[in-house]
């Protein structure tokens, strides 16, 4: 198969997988006092594509996933929060990947933390309340934990799956 055709197929399947992970995420109750604590399962797909293929593929699939999952499982407000998180984490993960100095674990942790930071920034803008910054330390810590978990699985996928592109 031509590379383009195969890439298209891989990105399609990845988008489907990311949608399923997004849906699974909505089924997991995460009721902490601080909103925004989540595992970030769908970032598994973004991480995988970023490392295996390139930033453009990862960004494209993430954009489609964020739009569709907000439409299906969320609201306009959740779209704003998701976009803020996705844009910042894609930028940070892309930069870290480019340096080639970090493993999937480091990239994933930085991605999760910057995702949470992006959401806090969006909350500060939407509610025009800078006190929301008080959530940041908590969300940074939860981000490192969830980022580590997702990164560990991501590293395994990167090692085991051969795309043969």
């Amino acid at each position: 198969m031509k590379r383009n055709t195969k890439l298209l197929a891989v990105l399609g399947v990845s988008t489907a997988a990311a949608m399923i992970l997004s849906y699974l995420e909505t089924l997991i109750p995460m009721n902490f006092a601080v909103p925004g604590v989540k595992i970030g399962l769908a970032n598994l797909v973004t991480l995988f594509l970023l490392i295996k293929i390139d930033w453009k593929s990862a960004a494209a699939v993430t954009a489609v996933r964020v739009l569709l999952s907000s439409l299906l499982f969320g609201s306009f407000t959740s779209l704003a929060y998701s976009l803020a998180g996705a844009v910042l984490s894609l930028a940070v993960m892309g930069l870290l990947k480019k340096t080639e100095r970090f493993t999937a674990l480091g990239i994933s942790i930085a991605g999760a933390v910057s995702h949470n930071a992006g959401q806090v920034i969006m909350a500060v803008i939407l509610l025009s309340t800078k006190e929301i910054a008080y959530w940041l330390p908590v969300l940074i810590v939860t981000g490192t934990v969830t980022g580590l978990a997702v990164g560990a699985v991501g590293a395994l996928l990167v090692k085991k799956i051969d795309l043969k592109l």
Partner: protein
Amino acid sequence: MDKKRIRNDLILLASILLAALAAWGVLKLAQRPGKYVVVEIDGKTSAVYPLDTDLRLDIKTEGGHVNTLVISEGRAYVESADCPDKLCVKQRAISRTGETVICLPHKLVIRIAGEGGVDTVS
């Protein structure tokens, strides 16, 4: 090569956690005992109550939603709410400046302000 990258990961992790600790420390140090409870709906201040007077009232937000605010013994908290996630009820009672109880679905922010801090903040 890979060992080096794992070491870099660890350095990254440590600096992120240090940043969180530093942010937490700075935010804690900036706090003072509060004087007023400020209620903001959709970014606009809708009411201000003194923190030293006990109070229980229903705050009505967009679409007829209700959060019940309680001020008792110098602390403010949301006792009940009809939002889907109830995170505002789970957040702890607040009494120091900068502390908040926030209900994202109702765009409601309950904030503690200090002496003269009611109009200058936000």
